[in-house]
């Protein structure tokens, strides 16, 4: 049985309360960090752990922290906007272990010297917002947040901010704009790397909810223990949000690289396999921004580099399974439609391209496409992500732009025949 880190407590009744959290040894890591460790030492443990960010981009957390510009005022922002279809791992953590998130946030604030931390939670997380807010309140009352925490001399405030109802507000610079009270328009990097110019112009670390939730464990058990799990750059565990055509969709925390896609999908403890008689057609391995992989890749271990080598990404750790009864055209169209709705509208290629591609894909799905539409779609995609490489190049400000082609290009590359059937038979051959 593999070790659980972030979901260790989620099944305990009332796991979201301070009393249960304390019973389970909660806030010991914070005490340890504040009273026994220097901020540098905490950072060092996280660096040693090798933990990659869990928000999607997979950047080493310790390295990110070390890049923070050492201005007097620094901020920590926790990204809990989680709005991508099929991604629901943070959802579980904020509802069922909010104190773990708060503790990780506090330790991180200490490590990076932030005087204030903001937790930006998706606005639709009604219960999550309630629970994180009461966790914050309880932690204030307990003395874990506020002035001179546990007598350590360290002070920090934690502010909860409900999101503004847009997927793009999960992109870290759009999130910062939104926190500042503006429209969630991503900023241009360079120069707006949050670690240099972030919230209110101050250096800012943005980390994902799951990333933060790992920090108490790392402080308690040491970075080495974390790094001992997994393989290569893929250390620790990951919380995989499995969905699509599996019998048991849900969140599964697994030691990284310890299982393959096939095991995750078919193991009765996890996905529990597909419906009777069906087979895997494709897997979207890292959220809807990721290129698809085919059944031939099912034996890949669930690791960062392994998936990257197959031309995709582990991204946010959400895995969608498409079985052979699902329509590739329709799936790609739906995903494009999502991106079109959620494009912030700043950049021409993303704003207009997403709409155009969505319309063509829809037309093909409805049966009025032509073969030349396929080249057209690919060329329009190429104008958003020149070369259609992976990792992509982009003509846009943020990576939502080049995420649009991922599904479309995968679907056309892997299932061109299916497109041709739609075109020739003037309609979708699948039953929805």
């Amino acid at each position: 049985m593999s070790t659980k880190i972030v979901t260790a407590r989620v099944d305990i009744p009332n796991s979201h309360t301070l009393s249960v959290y304390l019973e389970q040894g909660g806030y010991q890591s914070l005490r340890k960090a504040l009273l026994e460790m220097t901020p540098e030492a905490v950072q060092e443990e996280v660096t040693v752990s090798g933990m990659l960010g869990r928000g999607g981009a997979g950047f080493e957390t310790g390295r990110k922290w070390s890049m923070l510009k050492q201005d007097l005022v620094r901020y920590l922002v926790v990204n809990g906007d989680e709005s991508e279809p099929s991604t629901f791992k943070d959802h579980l953590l904020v509802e069922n272990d909010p104190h773990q998130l708060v503790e990780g946030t506090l330790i991180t604030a200490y490590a990076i010297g932030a005087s204030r931390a903001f937790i930006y939670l998706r606005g639709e997380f009604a219960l999550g917002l309630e629970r994180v807010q009461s966790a914050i309140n309880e932690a204030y009352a307990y003395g874990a947040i506020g002035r001179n925490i546990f007598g350590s001399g360290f002070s920090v405030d934690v502010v909860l901010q409900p999101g503004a109802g847009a997927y793009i507000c999960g992109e870290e610079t759009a999130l910062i704009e939104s926190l500042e009270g503006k429209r969630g328009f991503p900023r241009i990097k360079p120069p707006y790397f949050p670690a240099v110019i972030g919230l209110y112009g101050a250096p800012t670390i943005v980390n994902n909810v799951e990333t933060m939730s790992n920090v108490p464990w790392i402080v308690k058990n040491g970075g080495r223990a974390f790094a001992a799990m997994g393989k290569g750059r893929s250390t620790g565990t990951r919380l995989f949000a499995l969905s699509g055509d599996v019998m048991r969709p849900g969140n599964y925390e697994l030691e990284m690289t310890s299982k393959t896609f096939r095991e995750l999908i078919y193991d009765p403890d996890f996905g529990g396999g597909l419906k009777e008689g069906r087979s895997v057609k494709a897997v979207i391995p890292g959220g809807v921004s990721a290129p698809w992989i085919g059944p031939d890749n099912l034996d890949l271990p669930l690791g960062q580099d392994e998936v990257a080598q197959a031309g995709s990404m582990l991204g946010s750790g959400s895995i969608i399974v498409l079985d052979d009864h699902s329509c590739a055209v329709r799936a790609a169209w739906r995903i494009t439609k999502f991106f079109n709705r959620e494009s912030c509208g700043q950049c021409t290629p993303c704003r207009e391209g997403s709409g155009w591609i969505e319309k063509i894909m829809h037309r093909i799905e409805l049966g009025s496409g032509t073969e030349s539409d396929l080249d057209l779609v690919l060329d329009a995609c190429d104008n958003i992500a020149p070369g259609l490489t992976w990792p992509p190049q982009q003509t846009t400000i943020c990576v939502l732009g080049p995420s649009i082609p991922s599904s479309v290009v995968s679907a056309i590359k892997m299932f061109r025949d299916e497109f041709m059937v739609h075109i020739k038979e003037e309609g979708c051959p699948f039953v929805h």
Partner: protein
Amino acid sequence: MSTDESQNLVTLSIDGREIKAKGGELLIEAAEKSGVFIPRFCYHNRLPQVGVCRMCLVEVKGPRGFSLQPSCYLPVSEGMEVITQSEKVKKAQDGVLEFLLINHPLDCPTCDKGGECPLQDQTLTYGPGESRFAEEKRHWEKPIAISELVFLDRERCIQCDRCTRFADVVAGDALIEFIGRGDHTEVNVFPDRPFSSYFSGNTVQICPVGALTAAPYRFKARPWDLSQVESSCMACSMGCRIMVQSSQNGLTRYLGLDSDSVNHGWLCDKGRFGFEAINSADRVTSPMIRKGDSFVETSWASALSLIGSKIVDAKASGDPSRIGIMLGSRLTNEDIYAWVKLAKGVIGTDSVDSQLGDGLRGEVIAALPRATVNEAVSAKAVLAFTGDIKEEIPVLFLRLREAIRNGRTKLVTVGTRSSSLDKLSEVSARVTPDQARLLAMEVTKDSSKFPEISAVLSKQGVGADGEGLVVLLGRENLAWDQSIVEAFALELSRSLPKAKFLITLRGSNFSGAVDLGGVPRLLPGRSSLETATPVLRQKWANLPAQGGRGAKEMFNAALRGELDLLFLVGSDPRQDYLDSELANSALDNVGFVVSVDTYLSRSSSSADLVLPAAAFAEKAGTTTNLEGRVFTVNQKVTSPGLCRPDWTIASEIALELEEDLGFGSAEDILDEIAEVSPLHWGLSWHRLTKSAALDGVVVPITATALSIRPRAMLDQISTPGIASVWNQGLPSSKTSYFDDGTIEEPGSASQPPAQASVASVEPIWPVAPVQPLGTMRLGYSRKLYGQGEHLMNSPHLSKLIVEAKCRISSKTAKELGAEMGDSLRVADKAGGESLFELEIDDSVGDGIVELIRGSFSNPGFSPVRSDEAVNYVKVERA
């Protein structure tokens, strides 16, 4: 090039060619200067960049090889390698244009932008040729009116963020915003909140497509029907540089020219759309003589000979000061010079004024050390004791706002009332006249009674002698007599001799009038009657023996029956003189009133003789802005009927007196000005039109060589509509606009005139009356859109004229037992009264009632009395 600049240079390569550029300069600008034009939509040289349209992508080498980067967002750096011409770049440009066009309607044939449209033009040059888009385009209701002046067609919008950025960042009126996401992102106003910004026309000017159109121009013309000439707005004293465009002898549009020293390309809506009044059908087009209650047309010849005999009659009394002249703000320097020469050089009267109780004495203005606008916006600190600049000199407000926003200067305001400047100020202090005096005497002293102001000044490094301080001086509250402001300024200048002053009076050419003797006791070059130069004495044979009367004294003389003949040259005292009661009764009592006017104003309709004048854009000349900067105004259309430029009328009148003013054109007059006025030495028509036209020239010209700047490079996409007219408009519009005018000219050899010193003018603090029981203090100020002939004759602007309301604080309202919307009776000192709707406004101080000048015209009601230092009124519920 100074060493400073050369040290800051970096070398980069663009398409394999090495260029040098200023470190930190945007790549798109550095490339353009080196001759490589990169296409763009959202980039604008006067806005912060956003990098959203993605049209300007070029390949830039980074640690991981070349990648596409927005050149409008990337500062150049040493060793940068840039490719602007590659398959990859070309494909990206094609792609962006194709994306922009998929939802763009096929409106070109009916779109106002057609022919001057950056989207059209760049599609032709960089675009894919044809669209592969076969779907239904996005639809919006089109167009929608977002204000009285501006229409928005969201189908045409390319989301470049120019209008929204301008409104928010430059104007500070964030009334238009992006709404929605994805390809349903639209620009729009907020529900029930129109885009009622004083600067809305600028968004139309910079919109790179036909999404924003201005009501006064919609469907009026095509770029290829237009011709244009460069000029300067004369709707206020800023003198914004404009391009005047016309079609078939009718004015169609003004566009702001980007002058570094003046308006940065911006205009206010009052200036921009005022051209409609000039096209008005209600212009006076023929001389008219009073017959009983009405006018009959007459000929120029008989009108002039009548005037000649009136002058002879008046002079026969032996006192030339029985003849007076009031000059209005429409006049060019040449008009002013000709009329002043007629008065002071031919007739021999010094009773000439160009202010109507709302200005400041010429001697005071002449004595204060003058600051330029550029000096003001980069001063260590600015102290404002002035009317609301946003309402009176709007583009100066933009310049100041930009400087403060970017931390280049800090502002403190002093006055009796709140104004738009308060939001930009570090400190705004409310003062009484006594406090103003204290402030003037000890503002930089440790013992100052205004520690907050002193703290800002000292933190900003303003010297104890005022070094680094610029004072914006105007009429903060028109209910205070001008003598208070004058005394304040003189006192301040004595305690802070290094402080400079920017006189923020609104009247368009007030500065030219002071410089050219259009006020009592001064002569061209600001010399006094006693210190006239020998050349002037030679050209002006009949100088007055003694100082004459200003407007107020002329009116008082009229009441005593001592004013036989009054010329109102573009001046409308019945409407504009502060104490309207005095003006009305005085004008009724003048022997003979000649009005030279463009419309039948309140004053000209009761004159004895009306002469039709050429309006702005119907005559050439120069004007001087508030900082003493001279630029040309030019003729674009011919006047209707028998209108003549004001200066020719003065010449004709002189001829009736058998005198020759000695000039046959505006250029001749400018030459004579440069000859007789030491302040204007070195000025020439050639210099103003050729080498320094965009920025004009500040007088006196002090440098030994005039700094000559090449004409600004004109980014055709920053202000669409100028280059297009030049390229494809009528032949007459092919001016030398795009000449690279780097002509070397010698500067003024002569010594500039000695500045009149403040020591020679005594500050005289008037005695403020004790507030009578049961009265309130009066706050009297202007709004941009007040009544006045020009606005009332502009069909679109006239809708914006402010409503007559009175504003008091909620506390004061409670004391009166009055509520929002109630009718209040306001009574002046003489018992004249008027009713006003009450608006409760807590930015008004307690115990003060605020009235807006030009929002009402009730001849019996004159809240400001010219003989009161401070005015009080009675207020009660009606």
